[in-house]
């Protein structure tokens, strides 16, 4: 759910916008190191991938469904800086071409769905992969990172709302409602992100940025039919 215009007051919107601009500026510089001159085509395609996966509805039960946010998934697959760049571009395109998420709330949305998932998720991922190694560690790390990052983003939203919200809601009410709901969403995000990463690891481990060094690439096997020339 993208925050629309009018949810937070003007000063908060401008402040979050400034933070987002700063984060994107740093990411632009660092992503160049992750991808060099391939940045534009690769990051563009990854952004299109994230956009598509955000349309992937997963059933939660009782007729309701959630959708992937994809910040942690992107960070593990292509690296945190490129992921932040991709998420920002996705949110920008969504607000300009799809009217999804307010223009004044763009900074807020970049912080909540880009910066927090990528930063918190990457940190958690690093801690988990330091404990559990190899392929299992990458999948478990991704799932844990996603599980943690969604409620933390919800917490970030509550914090911003306390600061620049337009109505006086009891903090505990908002907090319990937001966190409770987002832990559920986090479980879906965690399971799907973890499984998606492990399915990529199974076929193209070389594509997973976070698994470089952790998972050995499969060796090239040259096979030939042994009984050459033998007739049945």
């Amino acid at each position, binding site marked *: 759910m993208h925050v629309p215009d009018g949810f937070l007051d003007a000063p908060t919107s401008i402040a979050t916008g400034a933070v987002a601009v700063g984060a994107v500026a740093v990411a632009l510089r660092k992503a*160049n190191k992750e991808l060099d001159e391939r940045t534009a085509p*690769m990051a563009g395609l990854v952004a299109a991938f994230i956009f598509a996966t955000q349309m992937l509805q997963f*059933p939660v039960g009782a007729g309701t469904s959630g959708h992937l946010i994809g910040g942690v998934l992107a960070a593990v697959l292509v690296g945190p800086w490129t992921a932040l760049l991709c998420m920002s571009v996705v949110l920008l395109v969504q607000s300009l071409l799809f009217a999804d998420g307010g223009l004044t709330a763009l900074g807020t949305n970049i912080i909540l769905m880009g910066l927090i998932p990528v930063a918190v998720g990457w940190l958690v991922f690093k801690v988990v992969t330091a404990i559990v190694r190899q392929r299992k560690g990458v999948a478990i790390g991704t799932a844990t990172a996603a599980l943690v990052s969604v409620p933390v983003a919800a917490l970030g939203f509550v914090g911003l709302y306390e600061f620049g919200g337009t109505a006086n809601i009891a903090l505990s009410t908002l907090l319990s409602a937001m966190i409770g709901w987002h832990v559920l969403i986090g479980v879906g995000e965690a399971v799907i992100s973890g499984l998606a990463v492990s399915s990529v690891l199974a076929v193209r481990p070389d594509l997973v940025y976070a698994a470089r060094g952790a998972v050995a690439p499969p060796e090239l096997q040259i096979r030939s039919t042994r009984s050459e020339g033998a007739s049945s």
Partner: protein
Amino acid sequence: MGAGHGHRLHFHGHSAVHRLPAQCKLLALVLFVLCVVATPRTAYWAYALDAAALGVCIAASRVPVGYLAKRMLIELPFVVFALLLPFIALGDRTVVLGVEVSAEGLEAGLSLLAKATLGVVGGLLLAATTEPRDLLAGLEGRLPRQLIQIMAMMVRYLDVTSDQMRRMRIARESRGFVARNPRHWPVLAQGAGALFVRSYERGERVHLAMVSRGYVGQLPGLVHDEATTREWVTSLALPTTAAVAAVAGWWLR
């Protein structure tokens, strides 16, 4: 590949609003929503003025109102939140239609509804009257070049990637699989993984194709029209109205 070109929100037309350069419309919209957000909460007549100004733009664009109204559904989750606000907010109580609600929550809910709706309608109008490539051209030179390039690539391959996912869903459904409960998540996750591999490999192919045509990290500039003073003045009429409404709202509070 079985899908139309252009993006889903665009409404083809040649009205005055369609013809304005994208950068003018974009700046006008950003300033407009900023003014709307900065309008004091209870200045309902200011919202009415903003809505009237936006209405004039919609009329000038000749985009059917129904076309925009259908797409306003995107706002729905926040409408629910706005409607809940009077019941969950604190502060003095007041009675509306025999129900006791929070006066402050009621005000906040109404203003959120008004501001979010104005923002969404403004955004929809921009999307309906502006082609993605014009938008990119309008942003060129105003955002970092790298960001524009990423955006251009994303917009170009958006439909390809989305269609690929749609075809994967159709393939699943034609084999009798519909995800109904969390036990089906692994199937969806594998689909997402496969889509990533396909997107990444497509990115590599596109990159190689670009390199073989002389790409060294820069795209040739997009063709864009410089806006005339008159076009700037025309497009800034909308945010000016909103600014006047906001200032008057604070003045008369």
